[in-house]
């Protein structure tokens, strides 16, 4: 579904990703790990058209999408759920969610998806008229995830979904990912603090200093002491 070849990404002159190549098949759950600040978010953003300076090819269902803007990619079914949430502060929870279904492809399913995310996160339904800026850290995280789910994506890139979530909701996130994956959505997650997600992963990648330093199944990863200690410990 996604063939990424020699992807390089830059912020001005700052070279973040260096020749990253990854293949993602339809229906997979991919987990990416790596130390802080080594380019994981940049990688997800690059796929989703949110980094302005990239080189390399990204093929999505056979078509090269490298360099296309996010407004096109969202319509094609590629959605990013941001690490720092990027909500619309002066809009209500409900309006934020509706905007999640902004793309043409998602619009017809707005009502259905809304019901779905409200079922997943009852807190959001309860607070549907609260302004996003006044939500607590964890509530805002739920809203960001829910807004991403509204987009009816085929490929979801989720960046650190557990950031700021309470423990039982972290389990919940793993369950949600499993659930949407079952519905046929391909998921790529950057997440280091939910062991269950690593359990779910079809494949694991480790990104270090802008390069892929490990690729393999979770069993292979668990066999790798170094990895186990650093990323899979908690």
């Amino acid at each position: 579904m996604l063939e990424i070849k020699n992807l390089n990404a830059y912020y001005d002159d700052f070279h973040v990703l260096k020749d990253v190549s990854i293949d993602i098949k339809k229906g997979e759950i991919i987990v990416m790990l790596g130390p802080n600040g080594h380019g994981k978010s940049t990688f997800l953003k690059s796929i989703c058209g949110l980094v302005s300076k990239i080189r390399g090819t990204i093929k999505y269902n056979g078509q090269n999408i490298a360099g296309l803007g996010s407004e096109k990619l969202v319509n094609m079914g590629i959605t990013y759920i941001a690490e720092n949430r990027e909500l619309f502060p002066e809009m209500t929870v409900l309006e934020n969610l509706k905007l999640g279904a902004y793309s043409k492809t998602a619009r017809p399913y707005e009502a259905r998806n809304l019901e779905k995310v409200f079922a997943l996160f009852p807190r959001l339904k309860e607070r549907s008229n609260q302004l996003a800026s006044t939500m607590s850290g964890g509530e805002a995280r739920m809203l960001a995830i829910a807004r991403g789910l509204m987009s009816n994506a085929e490929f979801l890139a989720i960046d650190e979904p557990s950031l700021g979530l309470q423990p039982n909701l972290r389990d919940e996130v793993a369950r949600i990912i499993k659930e949407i994956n079952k519905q046929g959505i391909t998921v790529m997650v950057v997440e280091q603090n939910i062991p269950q997600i690593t359990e779910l992963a079809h494949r694991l990648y480790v990104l270090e200093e802008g390069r892929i330093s490990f690729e393999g199944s979770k069993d292979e990863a668990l066999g790798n002491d170094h990895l186990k200690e650093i990323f899979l410990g908690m």
Partner: protein
Amino acid sequence: MFVEIIDVIISGMINGSVYALMAVGLTLIYGVSKAFNFAYGSFYSMGGYLAWMIFSVAVINSYFIIFILSIPVLLVLGYLIEKVLVAPLRKRDDWEIKVMMITLGLALLLDNSYQVLFGARMKSLPSILEGSLEIGEFILAYQDIVIFILSIGGILLFRWFLNNTRTGMSVRAVAQNPAGAQIVGIPKEFVFSATFAISTVMVGTGGILLAQKYFVTPTGGWDILVKAWVITAFGGMGSIKGSLYAAFILGMLEAFVGWYFGMTWVLIALFAVLLTTLAIRPQGLMGKWG
């Protein structure tokens, strides 16, 4: 006394509708881009000069045609100006101040170009509707009625658009978080340019409507900028509803202060009310979208 007060209220309403017309465009552009457009007044004059050219060079005096012809010109101009001048600055940390500066430069350029092209003397346009309505002791120029209807109608329509349409919502989204807007698939660059263009059209057509009442001069836009700025801040930068209320409150204030204390007190009173309001409510009357 009663007759007088009604007369003053009528003046206040006329002021209010004129102010509302001046301010919406600024509210929109500030609300979306947080960019302060110093050339706003110059676009106002541009509307007037466009109409004047169509009227005197092409000898067309149907306002309908004048609007039809000038709107696309203003739209394209606004769009291009945003793309070429403002968009490149938005990437910078200090873009707010840079946008102020570049639009100030633009204002200087435009206003003085008008002077070179059209001369320093004011230009006048024929009245959109001659005559006036007389109800008992009161008189209302048709011209003012037209301005009232168009400005209120336009603003309400515009507010409806922002609050109830998807496109409107996307404009607000970009205003609040451009990065977030990008993530949900809103073409933010286009939204920025489009709002700038629409704001230009709004102030430009406002310029046409008011030109037939107040004439066009090369530097007449400054007045408009300051008034629009006061109204926008008073109502809450970015709030259409706020601007509408503010326009009428200030319009009434102006009429009553002018009538009771004299015209020189109007400006002082205007700012006194503004300052008091901002001291109590730093975000203006409304202070957010809607």
